[in-house]
């Protein structure tokens, strides 16, 4: 048997007795042969390490999937906002002469609940979850009453949205003025709805200022369209 076949049979575990003796003899007497076998054993280890690392990367990915059950609020809303704003802006191009409150009507669409996705059939809901469920179901009075007691910007934002849904624009404006917008994942969208609410109240200059602030957010995926809207308001 040639040397290469001996090495193959060794790794396959198919050496018979006489081949085993031949293999061992070469291993002890021929340093070149011994080094060849050693280097193949190292290769075996290197491949094993690589394969184990590959499997482990998959397991770590499964672990990450469990830790991250849903995309970030901002990402999910960016997608929703893309559809929302594209529709709105398209309509808007055809309605350039509309009065501010009519523009509001064309722009405004109910903002989806991005904070507290609900699992249907859940029992023993806390107040906040109940409030978001009310918002989802269009019970804006109930949602506004609960959420106006919130201490966080996101809860207050949805309270303001509920007031807008109810046509209580002054209430909504007061809530927008009280909430600390900066730093929230929903910051650009808070500014967007704040501007729309100001537009509805005919507070055009403030709406323009709010849109200008929103333009500073270079990451906002529809920033160009916000700029166009602001310019149209300034015409």
């Amino acid at each position, binding site marked *: 048997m040639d040397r290469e076949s001996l090495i193959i049979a060794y790794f396959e575990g198919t050496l018979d007795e006489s081949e085993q003796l031949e293999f061992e003899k070469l291993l002890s007497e021929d340093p070149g042969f011994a080094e060849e076998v050693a280097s193949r054993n190292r*290769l075996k*280890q290197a*491949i094993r390490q690589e394969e*184990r690392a590959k*499997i*482990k990367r998959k*397991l770590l990915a*499964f672990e990450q999937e469990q830790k991250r059950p849903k995309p970030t609020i901002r990402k999910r809303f960016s997608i929703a906002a893309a559809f929302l704003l594209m529709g709105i802006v398209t309509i808007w191009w055809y309605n350039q002469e509309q009065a501010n409150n009519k523009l509001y009507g064309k722009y405004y669409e109910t903002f989806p609940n991005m904070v507290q996705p609900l699992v249907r059939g859940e029992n023993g809901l806390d107040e906040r979850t109940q409030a978001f469920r009310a918002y989802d179901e269009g019970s804006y009075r109930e949602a506004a009453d609960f959420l106006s007691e919130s201490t966080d910007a996101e809860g207050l934002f949805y309270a303001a949205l509920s007031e807008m849904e109810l046509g209580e624009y002054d209430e909504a404006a007061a809530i927008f003025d009280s909430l600390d917008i900066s730093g929230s994942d929903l910051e650009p969208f808070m500014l967007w709805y704040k501007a729309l609410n100001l537009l509805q109240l005919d507070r055009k200059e403030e709406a323009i200022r709010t849109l200008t602030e929103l333009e500073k957010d270079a990451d906002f995926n529809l920033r160009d369209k916000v700029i166009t809207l602001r310019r149209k308001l300034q015409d």
Partner: protein
Amino acid sequence: MTQEQLIINRIKEHDDEALRQVYNTHKQGFIDFSVRFGLGHDDVLDVYQDTVVAFCENARKGHLDELQSMISTYIFAVGKYKIYARLKKNRREIPLQELPKELSGHGIEEDEQDERIPLLRQAFLALGDKCREVLTLFYYEQKKLDEIQKLMGYENKDVLKSQKSRCLRQLKESLSKK
């Protein structure tokens, strides 16, 4: 064929969904089981992952084709020895445990440390797809050349042998340049 063997066969075919199923099914039970050994959560999770890696590796090598027990039993048996090894590594006093004979050769022992191996691993990764596949099937999955010939559709064993030799030569050349 039992449900357990169906899963093992899917793992052998590199079915990630089956791997995910095994990983998720036994995870909580393994964590609950490991608490009594006093390992921290990160260590337990790491040991669990290494255990599933060992399960997957042995399935691919064909060591589990005749598995008589449930997959969970196998995972807990292997996992227990991995916990002992981790406790030893963390220098904790532990009762001496012998690895049962039926688990020897199941890749439970840790990797050897040889400084040449990381370079070899890099060179291996730089090879073409065919070479990596042939070498992985032969050295990792421990398949015989006859099986690899059928699996990869080589005309005959000699063609495969010369392909394998070419791959090894490429590996040596790329190592000598480093």
